[in-house]
């Protein structure tokens, strides 16, 4: 398989994640979409690294996976805090900052 096939697959998964982020009402559902998007970026990094014969892409993937885990931990902590304060995790109801 050529590099193009991997890039196309990653682009499709990225756009599915983007669709989820834009359409989900539940905050946790939005986070799941973000996970999909970050995941597809990792496919791109590894594929580019492998096809250029360089391990830098894989090293960057290790870094991005760690950062994604940190993002998920902080994001879900915020969701739990929001639920404790507002008793809801629906994004439409979280409009405290609306003037």
């Amino acid at each position, binding site marked *: 398989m050529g590099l193009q096939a991997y890039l196309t697959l990653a682009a499709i*998964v990225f756009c599915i994640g983007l669709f989820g982020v834009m359409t989900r009402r539940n905050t946790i559902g939005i986070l799941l979409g973000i996970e999909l998007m970050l995941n597809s970026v*990792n496919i791109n990094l590894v594929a580019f690294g492998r096809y250029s014969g360089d391990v830098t892409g894989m090293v960057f993937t290790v870094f991005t996976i760690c*950062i994604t885990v940190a993002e998920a931990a902080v994001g879900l902590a915020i969701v739990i805090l929001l639920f404790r304060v507002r008793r809801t995790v629906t994004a439409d109801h979280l409009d405290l900052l609306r003037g």
Partner: protein
Amino acid sequence: MTADAVAFWCLAVVLVGSALAVVLTKNLFHAVLWLALALTGTAGVFLLLDAEFIAAVQLLLYAGGIVTIVVFAIVVTERLVGERISQTSRRIAGGAVVAGGVLALILNAVRGQVFPAARPEMVGDLTRTVGETVMTRFVLAFELLAVLMLAALMGAIYFARPDD
């Protein structure tokens, strides 16, 4: 078709199908399980790209770790059985148009380029090379990452601490 191509197409179908299920299922808990399948499929793609170490990290951290904490978050914020866990989507048509447009843009950019069709041979153990590169060329980024992880964990504990 070679065995590589067959494996790639199987993984691509699993990955795209489970990703669609993540954003379309009504039940949030089922969406998390579909996400676990999508992340496992990605680990398979990494295996196809000769990145065994990344595939292992993917399974341990993503499919193991993230799915577990998402399930915890659902248990805390929703009831696992009953109506509360079902979720709806809004503006599906608009979201599909934007996502399709972005996809068309990316695919257009990918098609216009000439990419190497064959992989260069990697000399030596790839996992060993990755480890040595992390510890030599990217050691500063590695240390910064450790600080970031510590800060993120302390922030998460601070946010989710019980009121006293």
